[in-house]
């Protein structure tokens, strides 16, 4: 994130950077810095959990933004690709034992499976209307979800799979030892395998994010925006719309699968709830819309807001449910388990009144009509 922001700033020295844009990039830069130093700022386990989740979801949501924001294709199969990456890694780690070879092989297979599936779906249904495509991907994703829970010998069914990850990433692994054989501490934080794992997740996420920023600024990104704005004209100019759409669908699928690998390695557990469920797809949608479609950096803002909201909204609803315990029905609606209800309402209102999202509104571009 850091590098990308600097690059953008360097590329436009002469132009005055508008206020909104400066705010957005400033916030994103700040979030990037916080994430980069998260293990030192918040040493407790729970915060690291949140930080890693944010890193992984930024990649996932930004790759989804490539589709929905830049190309105008609505896919509901994004968690399917995410899940393919996660499950392939998980199964490899389970069967081959904890090792980097398992992560590499499983991850490669997962990415390959995602790519093949994306090509199939893309070629088959991207030539028709956007709305058709949304339906096809929804059907494909739900079949995948049921498959994952039915093929329980392979995927662990509803319970999912737990496994070990390479010892290098274990908290007991000492990256640096001092004279007494104890682990070296930096600012009071032990330099152990857990830290290495966090930075593995962070750096991979950062690389992918910068790559996506690069993609949307490349000629490919420009063509995609042209297709989004006016498909007929893009076709008439001579761009093969189906090929471009399929290409970006595959790119997004591969990136989502890599995010799935990160998730599997970080959590040491893979199941429908964390890698494949429809709830994740809804999370992704909400994050993209809140952050701002067609901005990529919006993903960062959307993910951070949603992730924090998920932790605090539930607490708030708990309080509200207790406060209204005497009123009929209201406590049921305010039950923390019903938090999706309120997110759904928020989502509808956002799409009505704030379709460009936070980053999109501030930057004053992105999001369309």
């Amino acid at each position, binding site marked *: 994130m850091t590098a990308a922001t600097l690059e953008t700033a360097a590329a436009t020295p002469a132009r005055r950077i508008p206020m909104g844009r400066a705010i957005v990039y400033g916030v994103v830069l700040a979030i990037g810095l916080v994430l980069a130093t998260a293990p030192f700022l918040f040493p407790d386990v729970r915060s690291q959990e949140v930080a890693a989740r944010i890193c992984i979801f930024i990649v996932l949501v930004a790759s989804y933004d490539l589709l*929905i924001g830049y190309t*105008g294709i*609505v896919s509901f199969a994004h968690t399917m690709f995410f899940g393919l990456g996660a499950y392939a890694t998980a199964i490899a780690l389970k069967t081959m034992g904890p090792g980097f070879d398992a992560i590499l092989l499983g991850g490669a297979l997962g990415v390959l499976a995602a790519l093949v599936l994306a090509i199939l779906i893309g070629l*088959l*249904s991207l*030539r*028709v*209307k*956007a*709305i*058709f495509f*949304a*339906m*096809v991907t*929804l*059907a*494909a994703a*739900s*079949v995948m979800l*049921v*498959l994952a829970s*039915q093929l329980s010998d392979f995927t662990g069914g509803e319970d999912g799979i737990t496994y070990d990850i390479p010892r290098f990433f274990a908290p007991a692994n000492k990256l640096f030892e001092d004279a007494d054989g104890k682990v070296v501490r930096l600012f009071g934080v032990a330099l152990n395998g857990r830290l290495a794992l966090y930075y593995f997740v962070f750096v991979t996420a950062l690389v992918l994010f910068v790559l996506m920023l690069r993609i949307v600024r490349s000629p490919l990104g420009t063509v995609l925006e042209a297709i989004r704005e006016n498909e007929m004209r893009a076709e008439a100019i001579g761009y093969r719309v189906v090929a471009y759409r399929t290409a970006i669908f595959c790119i997004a699928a591969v990136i989502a699968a890599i995010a799935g690998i990160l998730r599997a390695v970080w959590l040491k557990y893979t199941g429908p709830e964390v890698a494949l469920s*429809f709830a994740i797809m*809804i999370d992704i*949608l909400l994050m993209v*819309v809140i952050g701002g479609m067609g901005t990529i950096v919006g993903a960062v803002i959307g993910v951070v807001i949603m992730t924090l909201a998920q932790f605090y909204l539930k607490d708030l609803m708990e309080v509200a449910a207790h406060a209204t315990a005497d009123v009929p*029905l209201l406590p*049921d*609606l305010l*039950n923390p*388990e*019903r938090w*999706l*209800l309120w*997110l*759904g*309402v928020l*989502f*509808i209102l956002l*799409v*009505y009144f704030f*379709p460009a999202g936070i980053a999109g509104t501030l930057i004053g571009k992105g999001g*369309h*009509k």
Partner: protein
Amino acid sequence: MKALSANIERFGGVYLLPVALAVIAFVLIAQPSTWVTLTVAGLAMGMMIFLMASGLSLIFGLMDVLNFGHSAFVSFGAFVAASVLAAMASWVHGESAALNLLALMLAIAAATALGAALGWFFERVIVKPVYKDHLRQILITMGALIVAEQLILAIWGGVPIPVPRPRVLEGSVVIGNVAIETYRIFAFVLGALVYAALHLVLNRTRVGLLIRAGVENREMVEALGFRIDRLFIAVFMAGSALAAMGGAMWAGYQSLITPALGAELMILVFIVVIIGGLGSIEGSLLGAIMVGLVANYVAFLFPKMALASNMILMMAILLWRPFGLKPAVKG
């Protein structure tokens, strides 16, 4: 080859597909009684899915609006019917066949009426502001679906609810050595009646003429001075009511319903609409029957494949006809 395809076209074209399916299945199954049972089950299931899918298809055809929240009506219909049937337990389990059926009719009517009312609300509040913007339509109706599902969870709770089945529709009719569940016959007959009614309305009345004209070319109908938006509300309400009716039928068929029902059926409904082609009830009927038959045959022949079968069917048909079998709207 050309002559052959011309002949196929003359005898019904794509409408022969379900027949071909049934014949292939007959050869594979090789037990006539099993085959009859499966076929009837498939037809009944197809008819119920047709109820849910036809509205979605027409709504899209007329106004280019795809309602991802359509399955919410199905769920609401199912749960309302379950509640009504539970409230009238004495009628449902009573000796009198007339009261049995009356209770069921009341349940279905309640579900249908609620579906229409919800449809009106949905169209006015959720869909109207985002006409002609597919991206936001998909997002907003998706959001509405989430809200609706959560409301069902809040009202009826997360546990499966048993649906009492009227006494007269319990059991089976036995013809020779073939046993056919009575409820399936009922479902098939009701579905066929609805199809006939829809077909008559669309093809024999002025409103139907306008709807078909609107599906074909909305702007032209508007230019001729008709208020197509009013027509659209009516179609939307009717479609939602049909979905709720389908949900109510489905609830009686399953006899145990969970809040996940809508989401499960939505996939089938989408597959049906994609196979059939958007905007035509003939396509929806064709798609629904094929999906119902394939689901039942495959579940018997290759149980492991049951799930993927409809997906494969959809893929195969999309490869052959990218717009579905009988689309009323192109592209």
